[in-house]
């Protein structure tokens, strides 16, 4: 598990170095870290500052764009009153993210367990297929997936609705979740499972009652990452949905809040803050899971 390797991170202590040297070293370290932190947070800071300004203040070229003179909630009110941000886009995004992640994690758990433990002909080919499909970018698949959605629409009304996203998001989630969980399942000792077998547990019951609880950090990590990937997804949502009421957050904001040459910068920035906030809060609480998921393989 990546988290265990992270914990080993003890910087090399050199006994012969003087205290002054050590203080100087850490001053250098922290001073050089500050630009990186500032760089990472800069656009978010600008977004936040702009979102609490009035239209007059934003449009006044003599006032500094780097801070706000007062605090106003007019942009957030505009978002709630005149757009579908909260009543549709956010709910749609939440619904799609929860459903797609749920489906993918369940399917991924089963597939990852088979890859980690079971021996049958074709399992190695399946493993390679998972790895390869997980590197196929969405930009290669969005055109043909329109046809697939139109075909499925004959049986179930999914075209131009967020249900088309619930169906297509697993395309990038399942390979990722499977690959991630396979590693966690391998860390569960085989002996524990064998005991469960001797006690008469079936394969599925062993997975549910023995393996899953022991690989719980991995499952949490998979859920968090799946959710984040869905929440941030842009291309499929942009291509598959034209109905304003069915759009997801990112696409709704980019396509509906930018109209012609008149930019509603205040409202636009307020939307960016509100759209990123749920993910950033989630991230603040579960940072370690994100770090281990990140190092457990790349994310799209």
């Amino acid at each position: 598990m990546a988290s265990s390797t992270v914990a080993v991170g003890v910087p090399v202590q050199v006994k012969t170095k003087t205290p002054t040297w050590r203080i100087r070293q850490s001053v250098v370290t922290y001073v050089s870290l500050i630009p990186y932190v500032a760089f990472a947070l800069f656009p978010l800071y600008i977004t936040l500052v702009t979102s609490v300004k009035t239209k007059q203040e934003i449009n006044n070229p003599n006032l500094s764009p780097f801070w706000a003179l007062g605090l106003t909630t007019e942009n957030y009110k505009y978002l709630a009153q005149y757009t579908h941000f909260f009543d549709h886009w956010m709910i749609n995004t939440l619904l799609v993210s929860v459903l797609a992640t749920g489906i993918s994690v369940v399917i991924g758990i089963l597939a990852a367990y088979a890859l980690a433990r079971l021996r049958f002909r074709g399992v190695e080919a399946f493993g390679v297929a998972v790895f390869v499909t997980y590197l196929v970018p969405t930009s290669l698949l969005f055109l043909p997936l329109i046809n697939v959605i139109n075909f499925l629409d004959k049986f179930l009304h999914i075209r131009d609705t967020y249900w088309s996203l619930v169906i297509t998001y697993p395309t990038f989630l399942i390979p990722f979740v499977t690959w991630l969980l396979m590693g966690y399942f391998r860390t569960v000792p085989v002996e524990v499972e064998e005991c469960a077998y001797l006690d008469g547990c079936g394969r599925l019951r062993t997975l549910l009652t023995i393996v899953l609880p022991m690989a719980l950090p991995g499952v949490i990590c998979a859920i968090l990452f799946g959710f984040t990937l869905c929440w941030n997804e842009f291309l499929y949502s942009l291509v598959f949905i034209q109905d304003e009421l069915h759009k997801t957050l990112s696409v709704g904001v980019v396509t509906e809040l930018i109209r012609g040459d008149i930019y509603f910068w205040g409202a636009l920035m307020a939307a960016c803050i509100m759209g990123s906030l749920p993910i950033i809060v989630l991230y603040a609480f579960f940072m370690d899971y994100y770090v281990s998921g990140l190092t457990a393989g790349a994310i799209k």
Partner: protein
Amino acid sequence: MAALRNAQAYIGSIKGYGMAISEAPNSILLDVSTAEPIGRRWRRALGPDLDGYGFVLPAVIIMTALIVYPFFLALWFSLSDGMIGETRHWIGLKNFAYILQDHIFLQTIRNTIIFAVSSVILKSVFGLALALLLQRATRWKRFFRGSVLIPFVAPTALTTLGWWLIFDPTYSHINWALKHIWPLNLLGLGPYQWLGQEYLALAVCAFVNFWRGLPFFAVTIFAGLVAIPAQIYEAAETDGASAWRKFWHITLPLLRPVLAVVTLFSTIFTLGDFNIVYVLTRGGPMNSTHLFATYSFTEGILNHDIGLGAAIALFLFPLLFVIVILQLRMVRKETSYGL
């Protein structure tokens, strides 16, 4: 680096499987032999855990229907002619012949190369530097690690809108700073049309991609750094090695596999990038920022020529294929430092 360890163990198991199924170290062998002779024959042919097929079935169905089938559909689109929903006609390689003499497509190839190469180089250099700093920062670890990672977890389309404001011609914070903030105003630079000039716009797109991708490099390389055994450094110190020599002769060689894998992953995702360019420039000005994904979107969706769009997107595939092969080989060659 669970993924790397996975891949290694996984490849190991493939080798083991070929030799003798019953000796595969991970398999559970409490196979209660109540099966009929026919079942036993199946078992010999297909492996001891026949229920494995049931476990992978849902994933196989979805991956076949929504990844493999669409991939071949894209191939058929690229070789045929017709609008969305119409009957398509085979036209052979005409779409590819067309895009290869289309100057916008040739420019797209050039843009993509400049975009990917410059941002991946920036990401790996600064990512390595940031990882080394993060390793040395023992206080406020969570704060530093947490804040530098935010660009990677926040929704790209939305954070890019923030960058868009920063680089907007009338509202540009940078132009404002160049005009009003001492000592920058003494330089007499600007105002620049950040997103309105050909090379500048592409540079801005690459820069935003660098901003978003930097945390991935930093955190992954950091995980690689902490996995290097401290004893190696201690031994080097007893021999009187300088910090620079330690970095050059210990850190860098031992990080090589991690660096290779991270770079390849990032290259794949940078080549397929869509969000940043779509939000910042939509491919303009004068098509100077089009990448494969945005140009494919323009032709396939906006101009309704789905065959051309598919051909453009598929052009990425040989490139990706080479990188994936390289990557699989890298993963195999991984060092044994428990990454």
